[in-house]
């Protein structure tokens, strides 16, 4: 079955093609095409994984391009790492497909949505199966494209269009670094194949500076894709996309590709301590800053988005501190519980008529039992509560940060872990406990800067909007979609089933690398790749981790459930910090001022220059030629004696010329 692994991405591709061409006739039934394809892929992935465990790495390639003596090939490869990733991606994708069946059912372009999802799944799976880093890059870009398309799915919302562009462009910056890194690497090794690259690095064929350069350039790609500081700004905005998309792309799979990239290029990073340090610090800083911002966000999806960034930071931190398995393990577990959280949020949003502001929610516990419980599981998992998945992976990350010997990194990791627990439960308590606050104030928080730097007043009710200009007769405003005062209630099985699946994964996924069982995942992943020895924490670390998580949960409980500490306590204590956080450290503004505006200004300047100088010279030559002609033509004044005179003077000049040529005048 492992030879047929190429079918895994092909199923979604077929789904995409079917939907592209006949989707418009299928309408809502489009979802079943996608679901079927993903189901097949998932089954195949499981089979491939089981075959791979205990099997060999399988590679199949064909020539892709030849230049000179060099050939780049393309194909697919099943390694332990990508066998694991296949499961994660196909599973999450499958459940997201199922979830979307309900969530998107009244969108007129549902077939396009599923087509996009299919193409995304294809790209992501292709990325994973890539036998060389160039193919990875190709699919890496494709997933970027799909992210762009899906974020901009509701293109008629200006915010969505802007967010899509921002997402693409920001990651593009990283991608260019990645591409350059890859090209330099290629010119050193003559190949893009992982095996050749590993061999070249380990064989010392590349000098150290160059390795560092290459590694850092490649890491730029990861920074962009995995929304690491300072290129993280796109991810929160990407929440303009439909929630299932956020779950699939911006939580579980695509954003993790950066981590995956560092994973597959790990020998290269290991060969450069500078690069490792940079990676570690980037991860740590990202984890910390994202977590601080997550503390104050009021949009349910944005909280989750910052949480995602923060968790990705954790993974990067792990990789940067030699915790190869830790990072990838967390990648897997995170995929499940973050997808769970997002889908839970989606379920909530759907139930409360497309509101996203947590201040408009509350008291959903009783009304949406399954959603609430699964969401709680997710929250506990991400907080690292024993024995859920997050506990195991986070503990390993803390271990690798600690054992790396840099106390600062470890401290940050701990603080972040604390904040993680706090903001997750802040979210949980605000959403599911207390009284339901929705339904009677449409724009209560319209002018709240916490909503969006873009000032989009309708974000809170923006998810799954309808374009006003479409089909005037069937027009229904989002708020009137369901009866306005109808209180939220649990959604159908299409939405709850995925939650249950993911919740169970969030519970059990951590067990694949149980210390008691001798870290089976570690054994699996480190097979055939030299990533150094993996750090393992001692028992006390697990308790510290648990304690930190507990403290965070307790504080959230005190503030948002019990109310013993005022919700505004910290905000009022340090208003400046609060404002800073609410405005996301003003990074968007800074980027606009430092990069966007000057670029446009330079462009304008060049344009003016182009018109006035470059083209101006051209036109000037033309005009001066013709005006010279006109002036000279005016000498033909109709006076024959003038003509004669000109001729005579010309004759004299010619005589003079003759004398000069003869040398009469010296």
């Amino acid at each position, binding site marked *: 079955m492992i030879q047929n692994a190429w079918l895994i991405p092909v199923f979604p591709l077929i789904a995409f093609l079917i939907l592209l061409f006949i989707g418009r006739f299928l309408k809502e039934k489009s979802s079943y095409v996608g679901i079927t394809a993903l189901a097949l892929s998932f089954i195949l992935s499981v089979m491939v994984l089981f075959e791979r465990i205990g099997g060999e790495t399988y590679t199949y390639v064909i020539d892709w391009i030849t230049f000179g003596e060099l050939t780049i090939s393309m194909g697919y490869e099943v390694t332990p790492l990508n066998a694991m990733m296949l499961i994660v991606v196909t599973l999450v994708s499958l459940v997201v497909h199922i979830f979307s069946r309900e969530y998107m059912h009244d969108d007129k372009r549902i077939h396009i949505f599923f087509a996009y999802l299919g193409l995304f799944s294809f790209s992501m799976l292709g990325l994973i199966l890539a036998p060389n880093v160039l193919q990875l890059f190709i699919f890496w870009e494709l997933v970027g494209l799909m992210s762009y398309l899906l974020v901009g799915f509701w293109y008629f919302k200006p915010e969505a269009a802007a967010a899509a562009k921002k997402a693409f462009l920001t990651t593009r910056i990283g991608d260019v670094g990645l591409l350059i890194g890859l090209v330099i690497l290629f010119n050193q090794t003559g190949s893009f194949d992982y095996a050749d690259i590993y061999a070249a690095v380990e064989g010392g064929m590349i000098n150290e500076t160059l390795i560092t350069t290459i590694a850092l350039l490649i890491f730029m790609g990861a920074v962009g894709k995995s929304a690491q500081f300072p290129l993280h700004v796109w991810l929160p905005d990407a929440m303009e996309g439909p929630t299932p998309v956020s779950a699939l792309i911006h939580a579980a799979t695509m954003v993790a590709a950066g981590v995956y990239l560092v994973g597959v290029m790990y020998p290269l990073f290991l060969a450069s301590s500078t690069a490792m340090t940079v990676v570690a610090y980037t991860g740590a800083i990202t984890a910390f800053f994202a977590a601080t911002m997550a503390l104050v966000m009021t949009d349910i999806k944005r909280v989750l988005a910052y949480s995602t960034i923060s968790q990705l930071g954790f993974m990067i931190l792990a990789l940067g501190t030699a915790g190869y398995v830790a990072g990838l393990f967390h990648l897997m577990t995170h995929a499940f519980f973050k997808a769970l959280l997002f889908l839970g949020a989606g379920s909530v949003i759907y139930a409360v008529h497309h509101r996203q502001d947590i201040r408009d929610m509350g008291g959903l516990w009783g009304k949406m039992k399954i959603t609430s419980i699964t969401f709680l599981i997710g929250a506990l998992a991400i907080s690292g509560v024993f024995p859920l998945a997050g506990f195991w992976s986070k503990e390993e990350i803390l271990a690798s940060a600690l054992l790396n010997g840099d106390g600062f990194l470890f401290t940050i990791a701990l603080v972040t872990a604390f904040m993680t627990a706090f903001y997750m439960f802040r979210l949980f308590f605000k959403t599911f406990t207390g009284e339901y606050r929705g339904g009677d104030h449409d724009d209560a928080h319209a002018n709240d800067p916490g909503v969006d730097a873009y000032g989009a007043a309708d974000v809170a009710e923006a998810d799954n909007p309808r374009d006003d200009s479409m089909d005037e007769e069937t027009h229904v405003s989002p708020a009137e979609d369901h009866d306005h005062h109808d209180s939220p209630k649990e959604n159908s099985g299409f939405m709850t089933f995925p939650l249950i699946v993911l919740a169970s994964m969030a519970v059990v996924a951590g067990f694949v690398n149980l210390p008691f069982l001798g870290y089976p995942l570690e054994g699996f992943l480190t097979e055939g790749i030299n990533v150094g020895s993996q750090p393992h924490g001692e028992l006390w670390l697990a308790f510290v981790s648990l304690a930190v998580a507990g403290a965070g949960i307790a504080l959230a409980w005190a503030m948002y459930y019990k109310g013993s500490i005022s919700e505004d306590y910290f905000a009022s204590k340090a208003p400046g910090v609060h404002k800073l956080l609410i405005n996301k450290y003003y990074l968007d503004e800074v980027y606009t001022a430092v990069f966007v505006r000057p670029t446009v200004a330079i462009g304008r300047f060049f344009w003016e220059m182009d018109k006035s100088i470059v083209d101006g010279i051209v036109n000037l030559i033309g005009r001066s030629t013709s005006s010279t002609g006109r002036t000279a*033509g*005016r000498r*033909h*004044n*109709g*006076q*024959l*004696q003038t003509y*004669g*005179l000109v001729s*005579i003077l010309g004759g004299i000049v010619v005589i003079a010329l003759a004398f000069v040529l003869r040398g009469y005048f010296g």
Partner: protein
Amino acid sequence: MVPITLFLALAAILFCIGLYGVLTRRHLVIVLASIEIMLNSVNINLVAFSAIGPFANISGQVFSLFIITVAAAEAAVGLAILIALYRNRNSIDVIKHDLLRW
């Protein structure tokens, strides 16, 4: 005998007088007359060369005969044109005839 150079110099002077006339006189008849003077100066040259030049022979005189013929023909055509023009425009002032320009 008079040195040939003097004849040539006289011819040059007459040529330039004629040329000056062509370039500055406003009466068209005089302009045509000036051309005749120029052609005459050429004749002086030719006859002088023919008579006392370094290679004196008869060809110069024949040449001058032809020039006289041509000058006559040219004067005839020139004056005919002048008359036609005068009929059309009622002026023989050179300056007035600048309809064709630019």
